[in-house]
């Protein structure tokens, strides 16, 4: 078949053809997009409406959680205070030891000085000074202290035993660890 269309007209027709093809494809794509949008729209509306519906519940939950944190802090603080008070309550008192030593001194020993310093919070030893009528009375006092369950040692330095009467002494009494 003889093609009688002039070359310029042929080029124009080709361009027109491809343009129509492009328009058709673009229209198809547009149609697909519209369909996709229409299909997605219900989900979108549902999610939006649910979010709005739950908004007040979420705010309530957040408020409750915040208030609960404050209450929990209060309980934690009370627990810490209780721990501290309990720890202090378990620290051994000093005066019962001194009273016990004073009870053990007897008639022939006069205690004139007591000194207690703790190691951390424990009472480890008590320094006691005084005057004993005789060597024997000082030894008796030392033995009585050692025999007491509150104490473990009360060594009299040898230098304290130089005199036989009116002996000025200074001893360190080791306190037994509380059970």
């Amino acid at each position, binding site marked *: 078949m003889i093609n009688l269309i002039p070359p310029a007209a042929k080029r124009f027709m080709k361009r027109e053809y491809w343009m129509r093809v492009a328009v058709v494809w673009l229209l198809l794509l547009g149609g697909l997009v*519209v369909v996709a949008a229409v299909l997605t729209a219900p989900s979108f509306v549902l999610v939006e409406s649910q979010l709005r519906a739950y908004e007040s519940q979420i705010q309530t939950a957040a408020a409750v959680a915040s208030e609960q944190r404050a209450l929990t802090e209060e309980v934690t603080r009370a627990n810490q205070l209780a721990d501290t008070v309990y720890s202090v309550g378990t620290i051994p008192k000093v005066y019962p030891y001194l009273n016990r030593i004073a009870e053990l001194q007897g008639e022939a020993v006069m205690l004139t000085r007591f000194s207690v310093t703790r190691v951390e919070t424990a009472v480890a030893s008590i320094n006691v000074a005084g005057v004993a009528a005789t060597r024997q009375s000082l030894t008796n006092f030392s033995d009585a202290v050692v025999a007491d369950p509150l104490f473990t040692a009360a060594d009299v330095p040898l230098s304290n035993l130089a005199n036989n009467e009116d002996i000025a002494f200074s001893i360190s009494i080791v306190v037994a660890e509380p059970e």
Partner: protein
Amino acid sequence: MTATTKRLLIVSLITAALVGALVWLLLRLQTNAAELRVALQTIANEAAVEREFLAVSELLDDTTEQRAALSGLIVDGQQGSIDFLTYIETLASARGVTLTGTRLETAEQPTLKTNVITLSYNFSGTTTAVDAFLTQLEHIPYASYLESLTLNRQRGTAGSPEETTGSLTLQVVVTNIES
């Protein structure tokens, strides 16, 4: 520009706008869906949080008195410190013991891991009065303990009772004071 080209341009613009709108819709949907998932989880947790909240509230209501009593054992702030010092001085005065403050400082007590006020005093009085004062000092309604104690007893002259002088260091737990 031919009529076909114009149509093509218009269709292209419309299609591009539709694609853009769809992309926006999908992104928004994705974000909202994520938010909704979090919201649903929060609401699901709310019941558990509310139960715990009620339990903690009840616990706090039931322990109001105990917590108040516990707080009363701890020196609180500067005013509490002043009240405590006044309390100790009143105690000594009531027993007829002369008390002179020599040191007052706040520091962390490493064993108890809490802040304490350290108070040092020199004191003097009859042995009976000092004994009563020190015994009471170890039983005051505060989380406190005698950190160190030194006693010197002097035999009384004819007709006068035995005198005791000495020094003590007292530590008391404190809150709301910087060390």
